[in-house]
């Protein structure tokens, strides 16, 4: 290996190391705070304790919020993947007039501040006399999750070889069979990647939830925000670690089920 190449390689590794550290350092700090016995952020830590995790898991308020967040996020994943994938197919395949405008319309929730989306939906529900049901919260989250699925699915569809579908049809497969056995498996990486984004967007959603949460039933980010107004202790860090572990588990499960390498081609 030449000296010049060795220097460049070292610089490359250093840069990569710095980027990884930049990404992981906040998680490390949260972990330290979650395990530190002091009721405030202190460095260096004075010991190791699980008291904040015990507090988090033994609190009915935190637990109810955690389960509600998971429940809503799972429904949002299902709805947003179905809606987002079908919209992507229609936009990419449908020869629809004004498809660029349609794409912009579907992506528009990403361009608006989420707090305005939340307020607008809240007013709409109130004026319609619907109150604040759980499904209203699901609708709000789905609205901002769909663009992620749409975007990732459209990316896959751009490189899609339609001759595969034509071959299946010519061999006698019905349109629905072509869709479920040819099209869907091929666009699956994009749909799944969008689904993961949808889960994270819903699970961490705060601005929309602030307006649409069900009375007596808040999601975890809302409860955490409320909590830190009065109690800024390690329970917040413990809750953050639980969220991180949950997201990591979801990604690892998907890796086991469909193979994470499938996304890498995106």
């Amino acid at each position: 290996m030449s000296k010049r190449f060795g220097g460049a390689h070292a610089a490359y590794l250093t840069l990569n190391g710095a980027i990884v550290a930049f990404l992981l350092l906040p998680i490390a700090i949260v972990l330290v705070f979650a395990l530190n016995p002091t009721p405030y952020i202190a460095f260096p830590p004075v010991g190791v304790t699980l008291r904040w995790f015990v507090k988090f898991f033994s609190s009915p308020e935190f637990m109810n919020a955690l389960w509600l967040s998971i429940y809503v996020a799972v429904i949002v994943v299902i709805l947003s993947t179905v809606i987002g994938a079908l919209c992507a197919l229609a936009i990419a395949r449908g020869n629809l007039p004004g498809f660029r405008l349609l794409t912009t319309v579907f992506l528009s929730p990403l361009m608006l501040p989420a707090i305005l989306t939340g307020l607008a939906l809240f007013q709409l529900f109130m004026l319609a006399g619907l109150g604040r049901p759980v499904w209203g919260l699901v609708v709000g989250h789905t609205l901002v999750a769909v663009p992620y699925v749409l975007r990732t699915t459209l990316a896959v569809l751009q490189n899609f070889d339609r001759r595969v579908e034509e071959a299946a049809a010519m061999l006698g497969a019905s349109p629905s069979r072509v869709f479920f056995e040819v099209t869907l498996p091929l666009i699956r990486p994009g749909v799944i990647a969008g689904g993961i984004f949808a889960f994270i967007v819903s699970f961490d959603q705060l601005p929309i939830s602030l307006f649409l949460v069900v009375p007596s039933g808040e999601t975890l980010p809302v409860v955490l925000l409320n909590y830190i107004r009065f109690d800024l202790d390690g329970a917040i860090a413990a809750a953050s670690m639980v969220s991180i572990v949950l997201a990591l588990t979801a990604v690892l499960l998907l890796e086991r089920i469909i193979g994470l390498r499938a996304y890498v081609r995106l």
Partner: protein
Amino acid sequence: MTKWTFSRRTFLQGTAAAAATIAAPAVHAQTPVLKTTAWGGKWGEVLKGQVIPAFEKEHKCKVETDSAFPYYPKLQATPKNAPLYDVLHTNTSEQWQAVVEGLVEPKLSAKDIPNLADLYPYATSDKICGVSAFTSAIGFGYRTDKGLSEPKSWKDLADPKFAGARGSYIIPVNSLGQMHLMMLGKIYGKGLTDLDAAYKALEQLKPIKMYDFTGGMEKALLSAEVNIGVLHDSGIYRYDGQNQPIAFAAPSEGVLSLEQVWNITPGTKMRELANQYINFILSPDVQKTLCEAVWYSPSNKKVKLGANYDAKLYNTEAKVAQLIQVDWKWYNERKDDIDARVTRILRG
């Protein structure tokens, strides 16, 4: 490869299940429902865990609480004849914003809420719309391990030895910061509304660390990020028995009153239940439970607190005489100008 099937039966089963889920709340349709607001943290834990279940049992109703702050814009966004809340519990500043827009009642009726008769006068004074059920005293939190003597005056915050180690709040977003600004007007000028004197005094407090929530100030004191900060007494007393080197100091000029105010919305369809709920919150037993849970001072004169609480909280005529209430209606009318001015002062 898995073969997907989607029959009419599957569709009907799915639709029925979804309809049942959506229709589920109808089961409780006959039970009166009172909609109100509630803070989080320990307060919410005790309120939702003990107080509300007792009220629901006594009045055979259901109480729905909204803890997703901010409440005022949500109340604004709902029709006045079908308000989002029947009872609004929030701070005094927001209550005054709401009363100006006709979103809450200016006064409550002692005939409908009998416990109003047992309150200290400040709880229903002309500085309050609705009723202040609890209050905290705003003074100083300070470190006891830094060789500091107990602060005696609001002027002590300006002591040069606290430069960079003193704390207050981001004035546009925090009512403690707003009250502290008014107190600066009183201490250094002609009174709580002397803004010119307040601005000048604020300038002299730089460098000062500003926090958005009281929780942040508490942690700053605990971690010695600041040695002295504007804080309410409950923010210090809640660490009682935890061997933390912090204490509360009440300045000799008086302490600011941080009230917890309850009010009723004019368009409520649950007026009787709303009155009963506020009366319940004002009852001696409930007051004692909540006061001892979060170190708030009770508004009801008949409350008998435990010895430790009795020694520290503002629960006698002599003690409540030290509470200083500010004119939130006056402040809210000038808030935009004040925000712009203090932002310039603290940025410069």
